[in-house]
């Protein structure tokens, strides 16, 4: 059982209220009312999206939701999202939560794509989850994933992890020599004139910048 029934998250396109998957609708309304009362001044007249998760709301329920928000805050509701329209940022949040629940460093990843060949120039992979390539990613090839990207080979092309906005995503490769690296909304390109690294490395975001670190056996 969660402490809260809703979560507030600031995303790139403004504030989003997430209704937790396993919370009862009445609890959501109660929790929302209580927390909006506390923070109404803080939020001001910001635009807000409400994400109701996988549940299907009836018209009455939607009205009740809108009613609570407008009564206890000055927030402007722009959208009520549900089911399939969930943004990748939601998935990122869910992953974060799973990580906390499992009390492990890992998390359960719903989707994973394993590619057992080399990706060559002009080949493009887009996948809503984690991508694992057993082979090289050559210059001119592109791997785009909502989750992490692991390459058991040399990355010379472009990798874009956490494309939906998950800055916790990472890109790892046996030899990391990409044309360009992108994680969420952060982009970096390879410095001109670099030689191939000889140890496995991974890239992650820290303070709006992509950093590279060697992967070493602990």
């Amino acid at each position, binding site marked *: 059982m969660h402490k809260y029934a809703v979560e507030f998250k600031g995303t790139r396109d403004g504030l989003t209220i997430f209704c937790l998957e396993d919370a009862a609708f009445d609890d959501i309304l109660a929790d929302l009312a209580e927390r909006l009362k506390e923070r109404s001044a803080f939020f001001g007249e910001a635009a807000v999206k409400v994400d109701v998760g996988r549940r299907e709301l009836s018209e009455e329920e939607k009205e009740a939701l809108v009613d609570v928000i407008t009564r206890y805050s000055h927030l402007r509701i722009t959208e009520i999202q549900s089911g399939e329209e969930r943004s990748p940022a939601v998935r990122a949040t869910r992953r974060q939560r799973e990580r906390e629940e499992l009390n492990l460093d890992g998390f359960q990843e719903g989707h994973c794509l394993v590619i057992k060949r*080399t*990706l*060559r*120039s*002009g*080949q493009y992979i887009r996948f809503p989850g984690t991508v694992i390539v057993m082979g090289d990613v*050559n*210059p*001119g090839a592109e791997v785009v994933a909502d989750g992490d990207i692991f390459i058991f080979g040399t990355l010379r092309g472009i990798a874009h992890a956490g494309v939906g906005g998950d800055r916790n995503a990472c890109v790892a490769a046996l030899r990391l020599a990409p044309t360009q690296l992108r994680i969420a909304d952060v982009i970096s390109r390879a410095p001109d004139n670099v030689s191939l690294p000889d140890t496995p490395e991974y890239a992650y975001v820290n303070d709006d910048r992509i950093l590279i670190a060697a992967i070493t056996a602990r």
Partner: protein
Amino acid sequence: MGEVIVITSGKGGVGKTTTTANLGVGMALLNKKVALIDADIGLRNLDVVMGLENRIVYDLVDVVEGRCRTRQALIRDKRYENLYLLPAAQTRDKSAVSPEQMRKLCEELKEEFDYVFVDCPAGIEQGFRNAIAGADRAIIVTTPEVSAVRDADRIIGLLEAAGLRGPRLLINRLRPEMVKRGDMLDIDDILEILAIDLIGVVPDDEKIIISTNRGEPVAAQENGSLAGQAYRNIVRRIMGEEVPFLNFYRNRSLLGRLKKLIGFGG
């Protein structure tokens, strides 16, 4: 039953046509019956490189459109009676032929010839799709330039997608002295990216340009030209023989070899 081998590259100007002509001549020298198909409709060159331009009556498009029999369009080479050329049409474009028609044509030629080489046009559009349609194997030509290698990589991916497995790589126009100075990609650099089997390396050679302009492929000239030797070796590798790769980094002068022998390096 013969075999159809497409010579392709993606990038233009890396030597597909020259390679096709020389492999054809090399095969003919070994008494194989060979047909060369110029699939570069609208920009035909193979006939010029072979010195057969003035003998063209019918072409590839005439054959697939049924205006003549395949036999009538095949031009026999002026030097080798086992070597034939099916020229491209010059007044049409790539859309004049479909992959299905090419497949049928290749099937027909395989009945009669030991080897059929298809000279593929540059690019990845319809001309490319036509050229690979009937092929059993592919030889990818690249030069030691980053752009050519990049395009070769793209082509390998497209061939894989088309179900043409195990393409072999021909590195053309290598300049050993530039590689030594570190100014040119080495064979290993190229193989590391492309990761396919090498079928041969042809050194850059002025004689190629001279022979191309004269319409007499270098593989025909037994005068010690390294490029000609490289092509003849490639032909034998295509036929399944194990032929050691030429060493371009060896000091070839007698003095140099003597020095090496008595321990002065080389």
